[in-house]
């Protein structure tokens, strides 16, 4: 009876994982991954404030005018220039931002001579391609190690586990990212690495049983 419930639990877990992955694949095909604002096609304005900028103050202004989805970055070593990025910036929004910044700082640049710049989007491949080869090499070495160490548990079984579990774990992670529309960006690699390590430790635990 206990074995049956264990089996049922396993089937349920597999079904849920499979469902999440399928939905994730569909979402990725239809909508693609969401990316951090700076990696998307975006528009930005740059304001030379002529003095050290208080990023928080500018962020408040940007939030008021553009909504929460914006990026405020200070430029150059003296942080006397600020770049405000959003998916789109209209002429009115640009004028409003520059004028509001002018209320807080004294500088020469005017709304009229501030240009809206359309920035280049970054392909996901270009963001992460340099991670791929180290992942493949480490995967191959770990794969060989697992086969040698746990050969007594059945080589085919160990091979399948070492291959399939990390792949499913990564697919699950990417599916969750795609479904929840979490943006791909600088935090994604560490999530992928952590899941990779956890899945490998899980494979070891399974092989030891």
């Amino acid at each position, binding site marked *: 009876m206990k074995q049956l419930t264990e089996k049922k639990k396993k089937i349920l877990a597999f079904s849920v994982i499979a469902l999440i992955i399928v939905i994730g694949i569909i979402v990725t095909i239809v909508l693609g991954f969401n990316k951090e604002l700076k*990696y998307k096609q975006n528009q930005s304005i740059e304001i030379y404030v002529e003095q050290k900028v208080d*990023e928080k103050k500018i962020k408040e202004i940007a939030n008021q005018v553009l909504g929460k989805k914006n990026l405020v970055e200070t430029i150059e070593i003296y942080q006397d220039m600020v770049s405000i990025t959003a998916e789109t910036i209209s002429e009115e929004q640009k004028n409003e931002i520059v004028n509001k910044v002018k209320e807080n700082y004294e500088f020469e640049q005017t709304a009229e001579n501030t240009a809206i710049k359309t920035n280049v989007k970054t392909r996901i491949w*270009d963001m992460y391609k*340099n991670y791929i*080869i180290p992942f493949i090499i*480490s995967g191959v070495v770990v794969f060989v190690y697992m086969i040698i160490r746990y050969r007594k548990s059945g080589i085919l079984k160990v091979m399948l586990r070492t291959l399939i579990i990390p792949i499913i774990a990564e697919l699950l992670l990417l599916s969750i990212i795609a479904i929840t529309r979490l943006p791909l960006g600088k935090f994604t*690699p560490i999530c992928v690495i952590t899941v990779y390590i956890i899945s490998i*430790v899980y494979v070891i635990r399974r092989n030891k049983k």
Partner: protein
Amino acid sequence: MKKVKIITIVLAIILVSLIAFAGIYIQTQNRMENKVKDYQLGSELKGRRVIELEVSDTTTETDENGNETTAAREQSPEILTEENYEIVKNTIEKRLQNLGAQDYIISLNKEDGKIRIELEENQNTDLLAYYLTASGEVKIVEKDTETELLNDSMVKKASYNYSMNSEGSYQVYLELKLTKEGQAKIEEISNNYAVLANEIEEIETAQEEKENAENTEDTGTAEEGTENQEAPETEATENQENTKKIAVLKIADTEYDIEKIEKNKITITVGSATTNNITLNNNLSMATEIVMLINSGKYPVIYDVYSNRYIYDDINSDIALYVTLAMIAILLVILIGMIIKYRLKGLLSGISIIGFIAILTLLLRYTNILITIETIGAIIITIVINIVLNVAILNKVQKINSVNEAVKNGYKEIFLDLIPVMIISLVFCFSGWTNLNNFGMTMFWGFVLIPVYNIIVTKTLLKLIEEN
């Protein structure tokens, strides 16, 4: 006595933790300076160089007086294609790889060819930025008319070497390997033109002599008749040599001397032969630069730098503070749990864990590891492994009541399972990508520190309690 030992170890841990988390401040020139090395932050936490390239639409020329004039540059619409923009992007990437860049992102807008390059800010960034648009164009041109005789599509590959001559001077050479078309072309050029350095020198000397002779002709005419009768043969050969036009090799518009032409390669001298180490190194770096520019390929489209800026990252000190506070809170919950479950042993183990974190942070600073988001992840993973090991040891101590056995079993259980993680970390250590490399290095130091530290500190503390 044992209590004193325990207190001494705990005080030592507190001292190390204070040094690691607060620092050692000493007055230097009227200000307090932290003598503990600072963390080196990666580009995601500090800032990065962003360089934007645009398809060039202007050209700048400098006149004789040094005044710069800008004129419109029109590039053929046949050249301004998606494929060519992609070639430029790939060439930029090859150049960055050849120059050892370990952290970059290149983005391309295929519609207008705009390229955005994000680079890690360090002492090489300006050099990398320079090479993004530097030209490595090779051509052989007729000296007088600038007619192009051979271009860089006929150059397959470049390499350099240096050798010592009989006088003990070192000469750096650049070798250009030619394509089949290039081989045919260079044969044709060497038949019709003077291209080798010594040929050109001979012609130029002859020309100079001729000019001098003409000048003297003007002043004295009476003696000429007899001289002309004596040397008709030499004049004939000189005339034949003089009919050969001069062709010169240019790399990025700088002339270089051709030393030798073989069937499939041209050997060029870089700088002059020298016994001076500094000059030799300069010549070598010049040759390396040319080789890198030629081998990485050429840009089919001319680009200009639109902007080159240092941008601070949006992860500000507030976010860093919140993350640190959250991590401290989680750690405190775990430590309280350990104290409740294992009492005094749990408390000492908890203190030992804090000491471990302190030493790990010091180790990262003195081993020059860049703090990136991946490094922070590796620090968290290392701390988790250390906590799991401590909990495993405490569990075993409760069961078998022998610290030695418990530590031995705990190590066996945890470290044998973590061999694949060690393999992954080691592979990442050798990765040429900054973020992965620093993740691997942090994990590596973690795996070195965990067994050593726990044998020295945690085991000693637990044994002292056991004996007490």
